[in-house]
């Protein structure tokens, strides 16, 4: 993966926001990859979870925004319990999602979901799905 870093991105508001919302020290990550090794949604991700952290460390917001990885995280906390550096990656993913959602951008459009599906899904699916994927 080819990336371009600059002092502008390294000191961007994005890095500060992710750290502030997640309460995590992004620089604690040393890219061991254990989070990606255990992630059950990796098969569908374009960026691996450890790559998202790396891009976040470098402030490369646009590269993260172009990826669907944070939207595929199911908050299963497998990475969270396995990180040897104590980074709660589940919280980092949430922070990055929220930075988008707080611009009033939805990832899931409720009106696109077929009526029958809404009737069939358990309440916990709908409430959690909308909590995680809508503004």
């Amino acid at each position: 993966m080819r990336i371009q870093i600059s002092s502008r991105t390294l000191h961007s508001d994005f890095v500060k926001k992710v750290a502030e919302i997640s309460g995590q020290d992004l620089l604690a990550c040393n890219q061991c990859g254990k989070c990606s090794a255990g992630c059950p949604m990796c098969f569908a991700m374009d960026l691996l979870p450890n790559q998202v952290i790396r891009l976040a460390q470098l402030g490369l917001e646009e590269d993260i925004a172009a990826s669907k990885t944070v939207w595929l995280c199911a908050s299963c906390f497998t990475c969270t319990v396995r990180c040897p550096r104590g980074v709660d990656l589940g919280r980092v993913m949430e922070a990055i999602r929220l930075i988008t959602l707080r611009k009033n951008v939805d990832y899931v459009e409720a009106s696109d979901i077929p009526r029958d599906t809404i009737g069939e899904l358990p309440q916990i699916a709908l409430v959690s799905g909308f909590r995680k994927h809508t503004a």
Partner: protein
Amino acid sequence: MDLSYYPGCTLKTKAKGLEDSAVASMDALGIRLVEIERWNCCGTVYSLAEDDLAHHLAPVRNLIRVKEQGSDRVGTLCSFCYHTLKRANLLMRNDGEKRQTLNDFMEEEVDYNGEVEVVHLLEVLRDDVGWENIAAKVRVPLQGLKVAPYYGCTLLRPQEVAIDQVERPTILHQLLETLGAEAVDFPHATECCGSFQIVGNPDFITQCAWEILSSALRRGAEALVLTCPLCHFNLSQRQSELMQRYSDFQGLPILYFSQLLAIALGIESKVCHFESGYGDPLSLLKSKNLVS
């Protein structure tokens, strides 16, 4: 013994089989579940953002209802509710600043400081009733039934909410063996089913379900037992699509732990509401002569 009980939304609608079988079983084991009054939705997911306190209000209000009832312990059945209530409770116990803000905001409520203990009913079975006492009350041993215990995520992770060892849980194994069934160990027992991604990315759930179900089948499981209504939905509702995709996949019945408990205790199977689920667990149980 009475135990305050928080059911949550899904147990009153889509997962009646989980609730009714658990209430009847606990009653048979000497524990009366007392539903708390005026409960509300737990919010389903615990807010993971440092600056989002509003979403802690729903679970904390439920804990206040428990406290108002004069109880210091609340039992939960749904894995989502357990997780959300447990973590919100820990936040109220351990974070003085956020506790103050939340209590100030809920000025109409009594102050709450995390006094209530949140437990899952599996813990009550293990720690209060005890496996030996359950074994003594088994009327229909689940002999010859090979069941894969599936734990999912929210009862085990993160560490501070884990009802058992995070990476190597045994609580469901122990329950199954207590009931006379054979617990089939399989490598995907704690793997996520994809959870709420069923709403926005249902195709990925099909893949997650296949990984878990095929892993259990390879180990010889005849059924899979779990605690969570969303895992139940994701792992059972996707099976018709998997049958079309994989011609040799014949399906795997999905059961709640409380359904097997009720059957083993000799409680009428109507409390299990098998008619409202997916797949056909009843045929399997009939073939083993466990229900008539």
